[in-house]
């Protein structure tokens, strides 16, 4: 109960109940998930719930016998014999002991069940997420994906560890108390039941009204938060335009609206509790009154002790009823979270029907043969099903595009009829405005996105036949937005080749021109990078990304050059690093620098998804087309 995360949930629980399409299917799946590893434990938990409820009811029933069977007979006796009472108390103590042990066992078991289930679920969801195609991440908001891990799994924890056992406890208690009450007095039971029904109706009405108000509150909260975010992001602009007062005025308006709706929503919710409590008290009073009359007249053997027990039961009866409705809405929240978790878990992983693999190879008598050790030579191992033979093709880095059309979304093609040939060691530069299709082409080479068969060939092999992992092993990539991980500098470089020695790491860093700045970091190569390398400059991050690609030593490179805005010193380092990296490799570069473009073997000018010009610098200049325009437009200004 002291788990801090639950507080958040508590607040959430006050909002409107979410809508889920197939709550039972999801519930079944989640429970199936729990049962898969922990069915024995869960059954035991249920047993414990029964045991502790039973012990509790026994205890309350004891009040009746205490008064009727032990105290009243002893009244007026000269020498009271306490032995029967002592025995009775010991017997009840025994029940209680069982109850306490059951409660403890329940807590212990649940703890393993919940933590274990969550761990398994988390691991599976993450495992599946890693297998998803890039498209999934491009088409889903990262915030939504994150919230599966940060919120939804947590809501589910709440549901498994608390709501469901609570619900079971409540139902069992309700039944047990109901039976006990009927045993004590059916007539009084009828009164209690009627009051509880009244209570349920009233709180259902109120929570419906609260739900509406909460929806309103949610809307105004969204409006306030949106405004806050926008203004905080633009705070410096606000200041430079002296817009402060206007911003305050607008904010005050929205804030006032939020207050009005929040006040209403909270008021309604706050009122539910006292109303229920007093209806409970009313029920208590009526029962006390009627029970009192029964007891005086000895109606159906009703006694003072029975009244005492009944009144306690009466209180215990109302409690699980309100508990049940609370737990059900908490379970609904959990299910909504579960639905989102399963959506991520069920998302279809990247398809890979490739079977051509990348192997170490050497040449023996002119033939390429596979070998275990690293030779520096790689070959594509191609098994031909029809003939039952295996051929080896040396990995060279020959990439061809034939009549490639591509659309991210049906009906919105972004590439038309792209025709490309890259010979091993050549440098191909893509030039064109944003949205021309430069990045898309590179996305197709490493199969982040798949296209129809046979249109892209790598060393003569249809890339759809190449196993994705092996294809990607043969490709290096340096993106414009450098992504680094929260690990040490060394580990980040080693990301390119996990079994690299320290010496290899240093060599790669030197090649990328990163060595000198790394040495100046507080802990050199062992400096921890904070979230995505926030403690490094943009240029330094790029140098690390280059080193990371260098250590992988791939025959084909995909480079996305950074645009300006890095300082000249680092920029020249980055440039040198990139040039060094490109040596002897087939390189596809989304070019932003004149020197890169000029030195390319082939410049591809793209416009609106089509290749409009292709050739080397001199050829394109002579053509006096688009490239000429771009090139000279720049030159004129200078």
């Amino acid at each position, binding site marked *: *109960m002291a788990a*801090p995360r639950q507080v958040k949930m508590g607040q959430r629980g006050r909002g409107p109940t979410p809508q889920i399409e197939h709550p039972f299917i999801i519930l079944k799946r989640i429970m199936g998930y729990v049962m898969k590893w922990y069915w024995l434990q869960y059954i035991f938990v249920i047993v414990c719930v029964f045991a502790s409820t039973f012990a509790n009811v026994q205890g309350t029933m004891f*009040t009746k016998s205490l008064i009727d069977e032990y*105290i*009243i007979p*002893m009244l007026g006796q000269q020498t*009271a014999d306490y032995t029967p009472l*002592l025995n009775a108390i010991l017997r009840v*103590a025994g029940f*209680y002991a069982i109850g306490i042990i059951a*409660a403890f066992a329940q*807590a212990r078991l649940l*703890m393993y069940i919940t*933590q274990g289930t969550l761990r398994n679920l*988390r*691991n599976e969801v993450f*495992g599946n997420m*890693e297998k998803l195609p890039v498209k999934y991440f491009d088409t889903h908001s*990262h915030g939504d*994906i994150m919230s599966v891990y940060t919120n939804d799994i947590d809501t589910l924890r709440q549901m498994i560890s608390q709501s469901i056992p609570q619900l079971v406890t409540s139902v069992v208690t309700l039944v047990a108390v109901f039976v006990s009450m009927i045993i004590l007095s059916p007539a009084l039971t009828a009164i209690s039941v009627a009051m509880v029904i009244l209570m349920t109706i009233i709180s259902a009405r109120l929570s419906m009204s609260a739900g509406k108000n909460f929806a309103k509150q949610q809307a105004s909260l969204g409006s306030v938060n949106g405004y806050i*975010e926008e203004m905080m992001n*633009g*705070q410096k602009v606000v200041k*430079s*335009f002296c817009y402060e*007062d206007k*911003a305050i005025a607008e*904010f005050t308006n929205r*804030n006032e609206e939020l207050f009005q709706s*929040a*006040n209403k*929503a909270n008021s309604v919710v706050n*009122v539910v509790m*006292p*109303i229920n409590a*007093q209806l409970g*008290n009313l029920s208590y*009073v009526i029962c006390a*009154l009627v029970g*009192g009359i029964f*007891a005086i007249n000895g109606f159906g053997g009703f006694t003072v002790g029975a009244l*005492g027990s009944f*009144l*306690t039961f009466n209180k215990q009866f109302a409690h699980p009823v309100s508990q049940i409705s609370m737990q059900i809405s908490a379970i609904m929240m959990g299910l909504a979270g579960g639905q989102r978790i399963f959506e991520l878990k069920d998302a279809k992983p990247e398809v890979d029907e490739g079977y051509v693999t990348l192997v170490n190879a050497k040449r023996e008598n002119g033939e390429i043969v596979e070998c275990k050790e690293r030779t520096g030579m790689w070959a594509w191992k191609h098994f031909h099903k029809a003939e039952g033979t295996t051929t080896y093709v040396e990995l060279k880095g020959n990439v061809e595009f034939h009549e490639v059309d591509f659309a991210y979304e049906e009906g919105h093609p972004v590439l038309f009829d792209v025709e490309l040939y890259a010979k091993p060691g050549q440098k191909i530069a893509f030039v*064109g*405005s944003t949205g021309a299709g430069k990045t898309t082409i590179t996305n197709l080479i490493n199969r982040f996105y798949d296209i129809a068969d046979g249109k892209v060939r790598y060393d003569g092999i249809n890339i759809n036949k190449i196993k994705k992992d092996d294809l990607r092993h043969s490709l290096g*990539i340096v993106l414009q937005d450098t992504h680094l991980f929260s690990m040490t500098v060394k580990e980040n470089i080693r990301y390119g080749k*996990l079994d690299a020695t320290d010496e290899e790491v240093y060599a790669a860093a030197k090649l990328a021109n990163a060595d000198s700045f790394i040495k100046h970091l507080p802990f050199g190569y062992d400096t921890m990078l904070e979230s*995505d390398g926030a403690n490094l400059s943009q240029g330094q991050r790029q140098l690390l990304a280059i080193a990371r690609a260098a250590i992988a030593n791939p025959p084909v490179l995909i480079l996305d050059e950074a*645009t*300006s805005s890095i300082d000249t010193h680092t920029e*020249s380092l980055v440039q040198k690093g990139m040039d060094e990296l490109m040596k002897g490799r087939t390189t596809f570069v989304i070019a932003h*620098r*004149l020197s890169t*473009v*000029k030195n390319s073997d082939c410049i591809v000018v793209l416009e609106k998804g089509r290749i409009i010009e292709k050739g080397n610098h001199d050829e394109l200049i002579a053509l006096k087309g688009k490239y000429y325009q*771009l090139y000279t437009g720049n030159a*004129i*200004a*200078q």
Partner: protein
Amino acid sequence: MLKTLAKEIKQYKVASIITPLFMILEVICEMIIPRLMSSIVDDGVQKGDMNHIYGMAGLMVLVAVVSLAAGIGGGVFGAKASTGFAKNLRESMFKNIQKFSFKEIDKYSTAGLVTRLTTDVTNVQNAYQMILRMFVRSPMSLIIAMIMAFMIDGRIASVYLVAVIFLATGLGILMVLAMKHFRRLFEKYDKLNESVQENVSSIRVVKAYVREDYEKEKFNEASGAIYKLGLAAEKVLSFNNPIMIFTINACILIISWLGAHFIVAETLTTGDLLALLNYCMNILFSLMMLSMVFVMLTMSAASAKRISEVLEQESSIVNPEKPVMEVGNGDIVFKNVNFKYHDDGENYVLSDLNVNIKSGQTIGVIGGTGTGKTTFVSLISRFYDVNEGEVLVGGKNVREYDLDVLRDNVAMVLQKNELFTGTILDNLRWGDEKATEEDCIKAAKIAQAHDFVSSFPDGYNTKIEQGGTNVSGGQKQRLCIARALLKKPKILILDDSTSAVDTATDSKIRTGFRTELPDMTKIIISQRISSVMDADQIIVIEDGTFSAIGTHEELLKSNEMYASLYEAQTSGSGDFDEAAKGGV
């Protein structure tokens, strides 16, 4: 901290005081009911007095009605007090943030401020409601039930006292132990989430290097660590419930035993025994509630602290007492200026700045990232105060001006351009509220924004989405320039704000400035030599100081860095696709 927050209760003081009073009334009523019940048993049932039973029952109904009224009152006023408090907190924070200078904005970061205004306020709101309603109610209920119990029978009530002390100590110890584990658990949680975040945003890198399995292993390890820590924390907590049940049950049994003896000895009545059993439950349950309230309060303490930090933050830049309300002209003078961000920082970010700029001149500023270009121009509109030396605008120290007057006359187009939700026209009118559409079009024309704006179906009435995501980088920059021009400033500062605009358009914008706004002082920061080479003076910044000032020709001859930069940009390492981005 609490004092700062308490100040924000303001108009909700009454509601804040009434709420706990109502809650106390509710508790008192609730505590009277078992007492009345015991009277029904003793004086009614056992003596067979029907009238007494009716009377007491009537009284109980009355008490219940009072209690209901009190409960509703507490609920309604509690909601008002807490949501109102939250409203005030948000408003005061927002207002105070508007007063912040750049120094304070940098200190808190955008994300930090947003969290404080949203999540933290909600946390405090809930905690406040909790304090008003439960924090008073639970101890009161405990105390009153205890008093009632003592009034009935001191001997049995002392059993309760022992039980309360026992339970409080037990729960307290458990909570302290558990909190330790939880703190570590949450740290791990944050780490795990960070790693997920990285995987989501860097999925291309993960996939390009075929590191899915490696990442999975890393994740499973972290997930396993959380499992272990979670178990450790819950192990402690698993004693919570059993201890509670044990204490309650032990109490009931002891009371039954003692009660039987006392009744037989005729020092206690049956009805009293029933009432005592009732109070027993009340006391121990309120104790449990109290412990829960405590946990929630400690958790919102962090939020409260973050909020009060913002509220207590004083802006380092305030208006002078007798401000100058007019800026004479666009002259700018820097005299021996030294500046550092933190007063206790060791090194100056900018040092020994001296420059004399005449009204109407065009000034180019060139230098690497992190050399202090942006900071230098921020001093002109007094977004930061200098530590030594002085900055003069229009012949007067910037500290003498009214801040709004100064900033209206010094327009700055920032590196990070922001447009706001609303139409293009709305956005342009940030510069001048009363600007006519013609004014706006004129400014847009100078900023070379008119053509593309006119090409939109809705023209100047095109809606800009949050963050300006529906216009390209270059378009955004040109709109921001137009917005700044509408202020009709005496000084215009462009902080690398044409970086996404092609060179040809960039050059047109500069030509426009020269012909249309000859009296305006123009300061242009750029990475591109071509953007500054026709300026009257070019300032080269290196390592936080002006390493050279001169015209293009002079600098080519005298400044090595400038010359090499020029060489690099014209001979091949310049940006190739600048032209492609916006121009064509």
